[in-house]
């Protein structure tokens, strides 16, 4: 499984090469990858689903911190993995045709393969830190994909919004997970499940649970964080179908499900999840009513379904878990399909506005057939999987004793809107009289309809044979959401039950709502308060406020005058260092007793003279030469105290610095002393205080010899282990090579920064 989780990160390296030599078939080739993974995961079918086993594999990563690349495959993670790879295959194939006019198609595949691998890693991880790493990777790749059309400002804003919200939630999640591992002493998710008692009774349980839930709610766009998802529709349609309906937005729900055995069973946990889910389910469904954009409509219906799924885990009964699993699979199949057909309509007609679309069935018969099949599943019509899903959701809600009546009402209300959305997205564009669209519509190539068709028929097959495939999954698989196996059979037809009747009423009212749409819209348009109660309004306020604060503090601290920066740094050092020094109380200053030697006094005099010359210099060049003298004198001190490496580097750096200064000075206007005497005195005091503080600290350090084991260790092992006699260099390239690695990386970034700044100025001059 290690290879399955990480292979994408290797495969992605091939994409630039494929894109270079076979630009037109990059979609075909890339889609082999998810297909291969699908086959790989299906090969576990017998073991995991038929026999009901779960598999745990572990490779050590940072064993000293308990962080391992351990992966866990049970019914839940296998289901998610298959959704990711199957929908991935469809989307990869589709995008090759849908996005063939994009110049940066190769880049798209790189991002989306990285996303897919991160998502697989996320659902397979058994270690909380590993899972968190993959979790963040999905946020980052989602950012890149939402902002894929980065020339558009709205796309950039939406991408940033999604990143800030899911990333902020990610921080909460990390905090929650760390508390959790602190309580349990374990980083393995599967082992946490057996510690439910210890975890839920701990005094830090509530913060841990709530932090983890915030992470999950932001990721799965639950109320009040839901608003990033409709905005994320700025992404190209394949991305919306894949990330923002079938997979990534379900990561939060996956996490809640996965954590349910370890953290669930308390009122805090179940009620929070249940109510947040229920509110999301209804609120977002109602918000959909005014939408006219195909993708936005689908986004709101996705939100409503995500709310339903969350609510079901909150209810937590066996029947609810069963409903959760069926609904999860059903939704992945039909919603991805509908997104893709919406993309096909957009691609073919040039518009996604629902008011402009009708009567396309004759020009786009295949698209119409696929969309209608998926819509039927979404509306919950027999014999599609959506029917089984909705029936079970209703059954589980009715059965729930505490708030059953409330929740069934909410669920029916939300589903009426879902039916309404389906009618608008899945039927309206195809029926009625044809209307002229911006582009002349045409049927689309095989690559675009094949995948959606596969998913739509998948919904049909799973519905008709629901007792075999999904039935087996639910009947005898370790699902990981609750500790026991469910043992409930799945059936397509339950007879004429209450649920069936409610289902029928839902569809009927949904169609009625669609039929009366125009009259109702006029009425709704007069209500404007909805815009103000939405959380996105507050998000925007917070966002603008943060920017304002940032501007304010940079105006104070970084006003563009470098001398001022240095002053701020030195004053802060004096205040922080000084207060620490005096709070430590009586200090040992005996280090000063030793009398300096003759050469040292000479060097000190040279340095002081040079300092004076720097300050009093009449030209810049003179000042820099004087500063250079100070640098060389320091190098001399290094030599005297036996640090030739430092001295050499100092000499080289000093020389290069002078060259750099000369290059810069060459461009500057003539030297004029601007500063007034008062300001000079102020600077003198600050500089003097800084110097005094540093001297005091040096004396204290000299008076208290450090007893460092490291020094002895390096001296002893430099030659023995690292085969070098120059300890300084051995430390740099061997003992602490990782630090050096970091340093040269920082240097490289700094060089790019300098280069960019200079280039930027040049561009500004030209304008």
């Amino acid at each position, binding site marked *: 499984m290690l290879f399955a989780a990480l292979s994408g990160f290797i495969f992605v390296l091939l994409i630039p090469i494929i894109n270079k030599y076979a630009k037109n078939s990059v979609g075909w080739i890339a889609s082999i990858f998810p297909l291969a993974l699908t086959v790989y995961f299906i090969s576990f079918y017998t073991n995991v689903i038929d026999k009901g086993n779960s598999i745990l594999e572990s490779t050590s990563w940072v064993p000293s911190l308990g962080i391992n690349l351990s992966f866990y495959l049970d019914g839940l993670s296998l289901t998610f993995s298959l959704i990711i790879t199957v929908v991935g295959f469809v989307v990869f194939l589709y995008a090759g045709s849908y996005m063939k006019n994009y110049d940066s198609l190769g880049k798209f595949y790189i991002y989306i393969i990285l996303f897919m691998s991160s998502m697989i890693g996320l659902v397979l991880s058994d270690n909380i830190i590993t899972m968190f790493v993959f979790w963040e990777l999905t946020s980052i790749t989602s950012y890149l994909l939402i902002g894929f059309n980065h020339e558009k400002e709205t796309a950039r804003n939406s991408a940033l919004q999604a990143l800030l919200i899911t990333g902020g939630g990610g921080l909460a999640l990390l905090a929650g997970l760390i508390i959790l591992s602190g309580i349990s002493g374990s980083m393995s998710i599967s082992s946490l499940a057996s510690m439910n008692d210890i975890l839920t009774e701990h005094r830090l349980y509530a913060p841990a649970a709530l932090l983890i839930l915030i992470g999950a709610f932001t990721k799965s766009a639950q109320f009040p964080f839901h608003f990033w998802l409709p905005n994320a529709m700025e992404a190209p349609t394949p991305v919306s179908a894949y990330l923002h309906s079938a997979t990534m937005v379900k990561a939060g729900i996956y996490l809640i499900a996965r954590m349910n055995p370890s953290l669930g069973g308390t009122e805090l946990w179940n009620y929070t999840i249940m109510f947040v889910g229920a509110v999301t389910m209804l609120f977002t469904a109602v918000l959909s009513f005014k939408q006219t954009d195909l993708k936005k409509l689908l986004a709101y219906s996705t939100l409503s379904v995500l709310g339903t799924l969350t609510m079901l885990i909150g209810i937590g009964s066996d029947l609810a878990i069963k409903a959760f699993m069926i609904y999860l699979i059903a939704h992945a199949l039909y919603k991805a399909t509908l997104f893709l057909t919406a993309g096909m309509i957009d691609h073919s007609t040039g518009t996604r506005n629902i008011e402009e679309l009708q009567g396309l069935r004759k020009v786009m018969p295949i698209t119409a057939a696929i969309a209608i099949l998926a819509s039927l599943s979404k509306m919950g019509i027999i014999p599609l999987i959506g029917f089984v899903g909705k029936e079970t959701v209703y059954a589980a809600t009715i059965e729930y004793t505490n708030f059953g009546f409330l929740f069934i009402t909410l669920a029916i209300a939300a589903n009426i809107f879902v039916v309404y959305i389906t009618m608008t997205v899945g039927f309206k564009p195809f029926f009625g009289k044809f209307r002229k669209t911006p582009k002349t519509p045409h049927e689309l190539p095989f690559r675009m309809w094949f995948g959606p068709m596969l998913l739509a028929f998948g919904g049909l097959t799973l519905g008709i044979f629901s007792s075999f495939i999904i039935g087996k999954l639910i009947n005898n698989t370790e699902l990981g959401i609750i500790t026991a196996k469910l043992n409930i059979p799945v059936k397509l037809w339950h007879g004429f039950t209450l649920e069936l009747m409610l289902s029928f009423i839902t569809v009927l009212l949904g169609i009625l709502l669609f039929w009366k749409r125009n009259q109702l819209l006029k009425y709704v348009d007069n209500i404007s308060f909805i815009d103000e109660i939405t959380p996105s309004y507050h998000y925007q306020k917070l966002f603008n406020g943060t920017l304002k604060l940032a501007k304010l503090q940079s105006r104070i601290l970084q006003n563009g005058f470098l001398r001022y920066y240095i002053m701020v740094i030195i004053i802060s050092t004096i205040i922080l260092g000084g207060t620490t020094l005096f709070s430590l109380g009586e200090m040992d200053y005996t280090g000063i007793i030793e009398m300096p030697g003759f050469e040292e006094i000479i060097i000190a005099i040279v340095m002081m003279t040079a300092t004076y010359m720097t300050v009093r210099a009449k030209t810049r060049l003179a000042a820099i030469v004087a500063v250079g003298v100070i640098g060389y004198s320091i190098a001399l001190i290094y030599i005297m105290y036996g640090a030739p*490496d430092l001295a050499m580097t100092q000499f080289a750096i000093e*020389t*290069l610095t002078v060259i750099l200064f000369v290059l810069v000075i060459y461009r500057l206007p003539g030297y004029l002393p601007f500063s007034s005497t008062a300001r000079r005195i102020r600077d003198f005091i600050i500089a003097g205080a800084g110097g005094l503080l540093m001297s005091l600290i040096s004396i204290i350090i000299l008076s208290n010899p450090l007893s460092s084991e490291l020094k002895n260790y390096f001296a002893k092992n430099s030659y023995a282990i690292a085969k070098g006699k*120059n300890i*300084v*260099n051995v430390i740099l*390239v061997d003992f602490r090579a990782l630090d050096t690695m970091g340093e040269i990386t920082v240097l*490289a970034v700094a*060089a790019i920064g*300098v280069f960019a700044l200079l280039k930027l100025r040049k561009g500004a001059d030209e304008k």
Partner: protein
Amino acid sequence: MKTSVILSTAVKYLIPLLLIFSFFLFLRGHNEPGGGFVGGLVAASAFALFAIANGFDEAKKFMKIEPIMLIALGLLIALLSGLVPMFFGLDFLTGIWFEKNFPIIGKLGTPLVFDIGVYLVVLGISTKIIFSLAEEEK
């Protein structure tokens, strides 16, 4: 910038010396003062000297390779030298050495390769900054 005949003649003889010296510093770093960092700095000052004597366009031609490439190459070499031990089941950046000594170079191992990376990064960064500042002048 005006170029002086004396300087440009002197530079002709100094450049090879400085470059050899920088390589020498780099190699002796393992047992005596020196190393990739200071070696890279000395090499960079050699190119800076050349640039002062012959102009920056000439210096760029003389260098033949774009400094940014040197930075990238250096980082890559340092990274790869760290990855090598992982194929032997050791941790990232563990030093591995050949048993035998080689003439001139002495001992050969991954830390030396890592140091080549440092050398190239430092050389690349210094020349990049110097050249971009000089380009601004025009």
